[in-house]
């Protein structure tokens, strides 16, 4: 399914606004993660503004697709995407990590019940998504049409539990489950292939009976097509390995693992915001 030009431009502009919100949140909070939220922004945008069945004004709508964030540390992106979708006011984003906020440093359902899971400790999101997909399979068998989406970092492919869950997903032939791996090649201690080599990621997932699609994680059309293609895969869960550029959108942050776990200071944030706003202007002028 080809996305209309207009839709692509609209998604790009949305992702740009979300990246701006992320920088604004992080500089205000004074702590948090920068690289992952920036590089997954395009994928979250496609999911929340195109692919997923959900109703931001009715977060408890029973028929909604389920969205599980496994690597909870990229929650500035989740919060920004939810706010821009209409789940809560954009102004609330500035409360990130502050005492009494609904937007905890890592997502916690006690504070923001509209979240599908609380998360933070790596490696347990895929298991929970497998459980959700199994629940629908128990109730509706092969006819279950609701999609369960789960976002994983590439570093989480170092967790044994991720592979325990991958094995079960393959065994149970969970056609209703789509996982996305953020292949940004960085983690907190350095580049993934130095910390713990992960390649070949796609061969590993294939070996557990998953359908594997590799995409450019910043190409809206490729991302949207992959989510659509996953719906047509029978008898297997799908994993989309999204090749992303860590810190995407701010040249000075890109590909540098040192931006994994720190926020920009005020000066760096001003520079980043200027760059993102210039890009936003370009997208809009091309669009018009």
């Amino acid at each position, binding site marked *: 399914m080809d996305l209309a030009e207009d839709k692509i431009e609209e998604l790009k502009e949305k992702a740009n606004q979300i990246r701006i919100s992320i920088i604004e949140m992080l500089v205000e909070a004074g702590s948090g993660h920068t690289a992952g939220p920036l590089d997954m922004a395009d994928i979250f945008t496609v999911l929340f503004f195109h692919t997923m069945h959900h109703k931001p004004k009715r977060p408890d709508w029973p028929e909604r697709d389920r969205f599980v964030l496994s690597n909870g540390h990229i929650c500035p992106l989740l919060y920004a995407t939810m706010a821009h979708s209409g789940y809560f006011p954009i102004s609330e984003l500035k409360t990130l990590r502050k005492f009494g906020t609904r937007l905890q440093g890592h997502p916690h359902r006690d504070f923001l019940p509209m979240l599908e899971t609380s998360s933070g400790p790596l490696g*347990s999101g895929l*298991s*929970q998504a497998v*459980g959700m997909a199994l*629940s629908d399979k128990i109730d509706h068998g092969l006819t279950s049409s609701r999609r369960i989406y789960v976002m994983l970092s590439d570093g989480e492919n170092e967790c044994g539990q991720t592979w325990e869950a991958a094995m*079960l997903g393959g065994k149970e032939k969970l056609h209703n489950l789509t996982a996305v791996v953020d292949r940004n090649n960085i983690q907190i201690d350095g580049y993934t292939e130095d910390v713990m080599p992960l390649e070949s990621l796609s061969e590993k997932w294939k070996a557990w009976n998953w359908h594997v699609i590799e995409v450019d994680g910043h190409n809206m059309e490729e991302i949207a097509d992959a989510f659509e293609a996953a719906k047509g895969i029978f008898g297997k869960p799908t994993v989309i390995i999204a090749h992303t550029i860590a810190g995407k959108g701010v040249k000075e942050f890109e590909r540098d693992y040192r931006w994994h776990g720190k926020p920009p200071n005020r000066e760096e944030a001003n520079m980043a915001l200027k760059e993102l706003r210039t890009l936003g202007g370009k997208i809009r002028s091309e669009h018009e």
Partner: protein
Amino acid sequence: MLNPELKLNSKMFDEKIEQVPIRQGFGEGLLAAGEKNLKVVGLCADLTESTKMNLFAEKFPNRFIELGVAEQNLASVASGLAAMGKIPFISSYAMFSPGRNWEQIRTTICYNDRPVKIAGSHAGISVGPDGGTHQAVEDIAITRVLPRMIVISPCDSVEAKKATEDSVDTDTPVYIRLAREKTPVMTTLKTPFKIGKAQIFWEGKKSKVGIIATGALLYKALLAAKELEKEKISVTVMNLSTIKPLDEKALVELAKKVKGIVTVEEHQIRGGMGSAVAECLAKNYPVPIEFIGVDDQFGQSGTQEELMRYYGMDDKSIVEAVRKILKR
């Protein structure tokens, strides 16, 4: 004498008292819960027969999930099922669940507020020949520190069946501690049971010491009471099967009547049921306490009898602890 209101086994002190593994009660309880409630699902990590989940799995194959040797996955998959409205029961040996998967239970079940029911079988040292690796004597400690978690250690198979069925109606996570070995059946179908309620099983006239026991060792406590009666030492024996939430009112009431307390559990002394009792009484009504349990050691191979004697958890040890209280 035995509390007549509880309608306990009339053959309590008969040598031929019926003995059934506590885990059998879990298996039967889960089967009954599954018949009553279609939302109940069972998950196991390669120990389906050992944990007696096979009774449920055979009757409801569509609601049973075999995960292989993967206890971390076991806990979090159950969390995902609970998120969709299912009532998941997970089972393994206590050493592996909640032992190996404690962080997943903490974060994806308790912190995440998902009412998963956790059955830990083969708890305590009475597993015997398997040796120390398989003898969970830390599970009460690590579950009772978790917010939202209910912790139940049933005294026999009949109570385990009731606890399993009743846990379906709680909207919180529950840990049910099970033992492998055959255990005297002390209670009957008519014995009342309520999660969170302690019960006096034996009451002497003008008791000097209160014995608070949990799990299968409750029977040793009753044997000790009977023995002490011969010596005209009067004690009260309480079944504290729910360790969290603690029946504080019952504990304080008992403490007020006696000179001191003996706690009895097949678990490390540090952090277990005795610690929970001590926390409550130190705050509300301090009395001397002696703790029967494993004293900062690991288990080993041996018969149940040999191990109970070696680690000081037999009826003789309970009798001695009562005497100690009287001397304090």
